[in-house]
């Protein structure tokens, strides 16, 4: 799907060498170090020491843009356990721009971002949370006086790769639900010339985000993705196929109403609206918050938040999906594919080989179309 990317910090590749390659002179570099040491309160004489240290730099630069969003994805990454956020920040990467965590504000934080983008041009990993409102010249989210599209396009230029984290960066999420008042779109709708990986979910599990970062740093490339741009290591399987309550589904044991005897025995939530049969997500495998539990594990149906346009295609959340009947894994996969394809807009899905990557790549067209709420035009970014 895409070739290997250059490691931001390959063996023996120091910041000084990067800078040389990207056209920043040693003189400019030393001036930067002197300024930095003043900012640090170390005085001008420390500039040379800072320069010496900087030339040994090994931690890859990460620039994190927060656009039109709710900060839930940042919070999710704060919960990551493998690695912990402390290790990530102090040992693994250099988080050179983050609204939520940066000490500085205003001009100082913007200039820190500019410096990091310049020093690491072509090498940094760009993380984006939030959508890009495109209506009316982008006035619906303005940061530092600039529109999201302006900010994203500038930051994308020097990025080695882009992680679109969460449903907003993926396709626009809740603000892009009908009638999408601000014309919100995802990163891939704006940036076409860079590898973009979608860490789907509202929010995604924090560990999937950090695992993708670690994958990039360890293997010098982004992981393989499905047609939605989601990494297969996390989104390669349907919830329904991994669900511990699957045996109850197969046995016809369903919760009919919340808190009934079936609910108190942990039976299948399909009849109270579970979207697990149409949702590709690592929830049942990775689980949430240091593998404590996950939505179905806590008795609530899946709302399908890793799938594009789930606010419209998966709601009402407590209404059941179109028939997902049938018994036996192979047969059911075929029936499901056929049943869901009936409602799909992209035409009939050829669904003979319901295995592995092929299945995953077809998943977009397997999404059910459930009666959407009345009124309003369709989402603008489909």
């Amino acid at each position, binding site marked *: 799907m895409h070739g290997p990317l250059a490691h931001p910090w390959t063996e023996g590749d120091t910041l000084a060498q990067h800078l040389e390659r990207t056209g920043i002179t040693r003189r400019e570099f030393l001036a930067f170090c002197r300024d*930095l040491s003043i*900012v*640090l*309160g170390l005085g001008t004489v420390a500039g040379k020491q800072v320069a010496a240290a*900087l030339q*040994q*730099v090994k*931690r890859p630069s990460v620039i994190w843009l927060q656009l039109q969003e*709710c*900060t*839930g994805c940042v*919070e*999710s990454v704060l919960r*990551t*356990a493998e690695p*912990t956020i*402390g290790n990530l920040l102090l040992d693994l990467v*250099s988080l050179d721009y983050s*609204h*939520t965590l940066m*000490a500085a*504000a*205003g001009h*100082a*934080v*913007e200039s*820190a971002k500019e*410096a990091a983008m310049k020093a690491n041009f072509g090498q940094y990993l760009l993380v984006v949370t939030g959508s890009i409102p495109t209506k*009316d*010249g982008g*006035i619906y*989210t*303005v*940061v530092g*006086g*600039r*529109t999201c599209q302006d900010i994203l396009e500038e930051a994308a230029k020097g990025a080695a790769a882009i992680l679109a984290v969460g449903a907003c960066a993926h396709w626009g999420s*809740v*603000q892009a639900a009908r009638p999408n*008042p*601000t014309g919100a779109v995802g990163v891939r709708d704006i940036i076409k010339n860079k590898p973009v990986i979608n860490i789907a979910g509202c929010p995604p599990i924090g560990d999937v985000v950090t695992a993708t970062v670690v994958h990039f740093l360890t293997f010098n490339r982004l992981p393989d993705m499905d047609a939605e741009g989601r990494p297969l290591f996390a989104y390669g399987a349907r919830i329904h196929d991994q669900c511990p309550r699957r045996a109850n589904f197969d046995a016809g044991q369903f919760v009919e*109403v*919340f*808190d009934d005897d079936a609910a*108190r*025995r*942990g039976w299948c939530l399909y009849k109270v609206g579970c979207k697990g049969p149409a949702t590709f997500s690592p929830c049942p495998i990775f689980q*949430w*918050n240091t593998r*404590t539990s996950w939505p179905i*594990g*806590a*008795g*609530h149906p899946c*709302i399908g938040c890793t799938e594009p346009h789930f606010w419209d295609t998966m*709601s*009402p*959340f407590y209404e059941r999906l179109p028939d997902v009947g049938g018994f036996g894994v192979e047969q059911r996969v075929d029936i499901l594919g056929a049943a869901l394809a009936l409602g799909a807009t992209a035409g009939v899905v050829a669904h003979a080989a319901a295995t592995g990557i092929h299945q995953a790549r077809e998943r977009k067209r397997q999404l059910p179309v459930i009666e959407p709420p*009345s*009124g309003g035009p369709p989402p603008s970014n489909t």
Partner: protein
Amino acid sequence: MAVTKVVVDPITRIEGHLRIEVEADNGRIAKSWASSTQFRGIELVMEGRDPRDAWAFTQRICGVCTVVHAVASCRAVEDALGIKIPANANLIRNLVHGMQFIHDHVIHFYHLHALDWVDVVSALKANPEGTAGIAKKISPWPNNSATYFAEIQERLKKFVGSGQLGIFANGYWGHPAYKLPPEVNLLAVAHYLEALDWQRDVVRLHTIFGGKNPHPNFLVGGMASAINLDDTATINAERLTDIRDMITRARRFVEQVYWPDLVAIAGFYKDWAAIGGGVPHFMSYGEFPEGDIGDLDKLYFPRGIVLDMDLTRVHPFEPERVQEFINSSWYEYPGGDEQGLHPYDGETKAKYTGPKPPWEYLQGLPKYSWMKSPRYDGRPMQVGPLARALVGYASGHQEIREMVKQVLDTLQVGPAALFSTLGRTAARGMETVLLARQMDRWYAALVDRIKSGDTQTFSRDKWEPSTWPAESKGFGWLDAPRGALGHWVRIKDGKISKYQCVVPSTWNCSPRDGKGQLGPYEASLVDNHPLVRPDQPLEILRTIHSFDPCMSCGVHVLDPRGALLTSVKVQ
């Protein structure tokens, strides 16, 4: 000295997008403008949806306040449909919301607010022995050895020595407003890191009851997490033990780390007890029902209003007196922009009149924010921990009174000190201590009910839309970590016909109203407020962060006739 125009945008270490502009004159702030620069229109999206889905949509207003909109939404729909939730569900919601407060306030203190007071670079100069001595003096917390602090310092040295300062780059290190000795700075840095680990652990209470965090699941009519002591997939003794231990660890950290640190740090910044007071009116909707939600005498934090800093009297809160104004907001009202509208009758027509981006200044423009101006009886109101503390104090809430007295005595300041930037920060810590203790009681009450054989978590009577009236309306109120939150819903023929939220950060970040009254952020910034170095606006961050801004929460729009928004024009 000439007047200096200062723009701070983005304000970092908050939720969302906030722009502050001030005019500084001779080291003081003379004028201020607070602008919310993000608009998403979520409530507009909700028209025609199933009201039982509303909690999930409104929850996505904010991933930091990830519990509060969901609960307020459930309460609004339950109010509209006349649904009474089971006592167990109420206790579970209290536990989930209580942990939201504790988690949120601790993260706010260490990760969003501390760097306004703590000079990270200064910690490099600390003597770890000295830090250990201070740590032992103020708390029994076991991570208090010189070896431990030396190790933290070494890690920090390595980090700074790498030259890659990451999140600390371009901070205002060495600014004269930083007053802590290096040893206290090192203590705070150590706890910054410990709090990162702590928050990941205790928030798992949300995961057990709601399946995940952020954005745990809720349910109109109760909670979806069924209780059965004899099943593997339900709330059973194993899960309850995990919850119990989390509550214990949460309380221990709050009592032994957060609170002692806050008091110790506050001791070096007493001058901030006379800075940034601002709007003198305070409002709390009250929170944590300990009986039926309609029984307002059984709220752990009481409901009420304090006017003009007068703590001898609590005024009742009457929901019909809430109005929203748009004199300075990028909206228009069909009936004229001078009107104030109650949320049940709220109108929202976005009308952007600001400059074409990129912006230089918004100050001086008649309209400058996506935030509306909510007013109670025509007055701006401060909401949040300080409002709860003051309303609680004035109501005679024993635990709040003791806590306030303790902190005033320790810091050797008078009650006037509460009305300040430092007062807001201290009040947040006080209520965290109280709630960390209260969690034990709610947990015990839940266990007692289960013991007595009551495991019901959901009221099913009015789940089916066929049981609903043709038309209904409801008010879902709640006092969230950042303050008074209201959701107003109208339901018609089983669908949402109107939805409006008036949230804490809208109250606090509201722009000027038609009478020229500043909102609380703005008023605080011009209340005896210093700004020593306009290019390093550390003092602005202190006061703004003392409110714990949540901008995504603050800006919302609802219009039942969604088509209106499509006519938005630039200029």
